[in-house]
């Protein structure tokens, strides 16, 4: 924990402990080659072991922002800093990220084990040495018995679990999830939401979760970043102070509905302005 802390001294000489962000986005813009402004002036600090949601209507650039965090997309202006990561000689940060896409995006020709092993294989790790690691990731998502199954033989929810295991197998500091449950039914989605919270607690990583569901974001996150479209921008932030573990009780509490109302009001405000 200590390396995550940044000791600073305030003007009156008192030492305060401040957490150092995992990623810092400053004034980031993204303009596509056709001139569309996808993101405008994004400022966001992401802290270690945080659960943070990006919430907004479609077209608000939340997925674009997530891709920029992952390194899959480049930004057009502003700066991004990884204060806790190593940088290579060309000045690129060594991002330790995992990405869970909207679809499970598994290789249909490979077993569950090989699918989860893929990120390690691409990093030139040997299968023999990594077997335990892969099995751990599978156990983390509750799929221990399915290493030899093929994706076709699994249900939608189980495929998504494999996809999450694949993202976790490199033990990333930042797990990016791009509307991972959008294609699943309500019941499976609720179940997987609980599982994601559980995985987050055990994997001790930061989760950044993109969603357009107010209820999902309030249930899951410590912090909700609300975004609006045209141009994609952040219009506000909301802290959800309810303690973890959260369960059905929380879903039915008045506190929960109050939070949902607050987020909803924030979105309405953005739509009107």
């Amino acid at each position, binding site marked *: 924990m200590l390396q995550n802390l940044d000791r600073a001294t305030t003007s009156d000489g008192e030492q305060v402990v401040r957490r150092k962000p995992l990623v810092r986005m400053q004034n980031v813009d993204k303009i596509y080659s056709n001139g569309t402004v996808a993101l405008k002036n994004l400022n966001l600090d992401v802290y270690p072991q945080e659960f943070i949601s990006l919430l907004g209507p479609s077209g608000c650039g939340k997925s674009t922002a997530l891709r920029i965090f*992952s*390194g*899959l997309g480049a930004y057009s202006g502003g700066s991004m800093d990884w204060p806790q990561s190593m940088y290579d000689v060309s000045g690129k940060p060594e991002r330790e*990220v995992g*990405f869970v*896409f909207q*679809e499970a*995006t598994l*290789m*249909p*020709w*490979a077993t569950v084990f090989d699918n989860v092993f*893929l*990120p390690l*294989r*691409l*990093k030139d790790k040997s299968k023999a040495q990594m077997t335990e690691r892969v099995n751990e990731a599978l*156990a*983390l*998502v*509750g*799929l*221990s*018995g*399915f290493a*030899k*199954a*093929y*994706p*076709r*033989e*699994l*249900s939608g*929810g*189980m495929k998504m679990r494999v996809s999450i295991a*694949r993202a976790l197998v*490199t033990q990333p500091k930042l797990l990016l999830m791009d509307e991972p449950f959008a294609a699943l039914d309500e019941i*499976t989605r609720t*179940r997987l939401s*609980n*599982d994601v919270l*559980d995985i987050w607690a055990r994997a001790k990583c930061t989760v950044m979760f993109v969603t357009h569901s107010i209820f999902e974001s309030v249930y899951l996150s410590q912090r909700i970043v609300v975004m609006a479209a045209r141009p994609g921008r952040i219009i506000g932030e909301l802290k959800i102070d309810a303690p973890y573990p959260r369960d059905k009780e929380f879903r039915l509490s008045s506190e929960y509905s109050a939070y949902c109302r607050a987020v909803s009001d924030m979105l309405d405000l953005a739509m009107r302005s």
Partner: protein
Amino acid sequence: MTMNPAVNSTMNSTLPEETAEATTGPALESSRWSLSQILDRSSPLIAGIIFLLAWEWLIKFYNVSKFVLPPPSLIISTLISERADLLTGLQYTAAVTISAFVAAVVSGIFFGVLLTQNRRIENTFWPYAVMMQVTPVVAIAPLVIIWVGLDRVWLAMLLLAWMVAFFPMLSNTAIGMKSADHGLRNVFELYGASRWKRFRYLQLPSALPFILAGARISSGLSVIGAVVAEFVAGSGGSRGLAFMIVESGTMLNIPRMFAALVMLSAFGLSIWYVTSAVQTLLLRRWHESELKQEN
């Protein structure tokens, strides 16, 4: 495959329903043979036997000359009496066909992969590949025979059969290489996959169903290519089945012509079945085309 997960995580409560949801795929196929299954498998054979019996009977009934259309019984007896010649012919044609097919598969995959590595290479050479495809091989055959075939007939035939069989392999490989799922490409990019790894673990497996479909088309075409080549090469040294057909035709030995034709069809059919079996073997665990769906 054990479908009984010994889950030791906290997700115990979540799994049983999902397990029930998951289909066990191939495990469901039992070895029990129902009547309808037996009928399914034997129906082509039954239809064939009825067809042959009708043929035999019609020829007797209308008293058709064997120089026009011989009855199946005569064709079968010719098959037996001429078996030495026919088998030599089959050997010759099969050698040309199989070599041409293997050459087409290897070169088709090689150039298909090469072509898709770079857009400029693709734009430059694609029209010529198409040109090769659309030019009828019969039209080029005499030229090829003159160039390489005067003292190496076998090579000329190989070349001609290859020219017919090559294109489906090329185009299918090229399409397959480009058909990799976009989401998976992102996954590979995210983990900084090298070009080789992207090829080996993403593009090649994605292309496999396309390549195998191409191989099935090519296998049939290489038989056609070999036959056309023998027709054109004529008596210049060919001893294959197709030449036997031409030869028997000129000698009005129609039963022998049919016997050679039967051999040729049987050979084509077996090549088709072999390629189909390879396809099933390679795709049965994961590809839609080989999976059975129970409703």
